[in-house]
């Protein structure tokens, strides 16, 4: 049963990542990538990684992909406003299938975590990861925050139209 669940989730993940690369318009590619992030979060839940799964949804699907969609909107790269007549039902089925697979994936992965009989192989909640981040990875943690500050400043500077008024 575990192998079937994993095979199904792996198949969905590979299909979605193919969708990112093959899609005709940038917006469909971004939507496929959001689906990839969610599917990866489901896999992380199944891998006893609740903290990483939450961060995946919050950071990747919630912030990075929003940036991508904003840029698509700004540069008007949505494209493909009129889908050919035969394509729309297929996309509707694909969307419904994606939603159903997300629900089924969350249900099957979360059941492994919540079942009272089995204890997970190791505990990887916020407490343990926090201890690792502020213990062994303290330098990397602080350097990453410095990197984030630098990237924010850099992105603002790169986005200015003219540096001198």
């Amino acid at each position, binding site marked *: 049963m575990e192998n079937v669940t994993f095979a199904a989730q792996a198949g969905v993940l*590979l299909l979605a*990542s193919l969708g990112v690369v093959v899609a005709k318009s940038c917006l469909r590619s971004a939507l496929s990538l959001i689906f990839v*992030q969610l599917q990866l979060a489901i896999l992380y839940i199944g891998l006893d*990684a609740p903290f990483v799964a939450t961060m995946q949804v919050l950071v*990747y699907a919630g912030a990075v992909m929003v940036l991508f969609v904003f840029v698509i909107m700004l540069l008007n790269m949505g494209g493909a406003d009129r889908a050919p007549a035969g394509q729309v039902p297929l996309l509707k089925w694909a969307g419904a299938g994606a939603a159903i697979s997300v629900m089924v994936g969350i249900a099957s992965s979360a059941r492994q975590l919540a079942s009272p009989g089995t204890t997970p192989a190791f505990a990887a909640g916020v407490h343990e990861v926090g201890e690792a981040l502020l213990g062994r990875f303290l330098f990397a943690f602080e350097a990453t925050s410095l990197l984030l500050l630098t990237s924010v400043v850099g992105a603002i500077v790169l986005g200015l139209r003219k540096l001198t008024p």
Partner: protein
Amino acid sequence: MHYVALAAGMFAIGAAGALLRRNLLILLMSIELMLNAANLVFVAYARAYGDVNGHATSFIVMAIAAAESAVGLAVLLGAFRHRETSSVDAHDALRDHV
């Protein structure tokens, strides 16, 4: 382990997309795909060895990927303004026309 094979497949798809697609935005998205594949490997091995360091590393990789995508999108905006197209082939100023 099957997760590593899955991550390898995802990485290969992302690399193929980064090399074959001519759109800058899809290039950036393929890079995100590759980073996600690396994250999957980290988390899978963290569970195999019962080590939380894999999760911490994965979190830091996530933060780095977010920073890199922000800067990459700013560069994309600047490049789009410069050449009025989002095609990678438009930026060939350093190309050697042999």
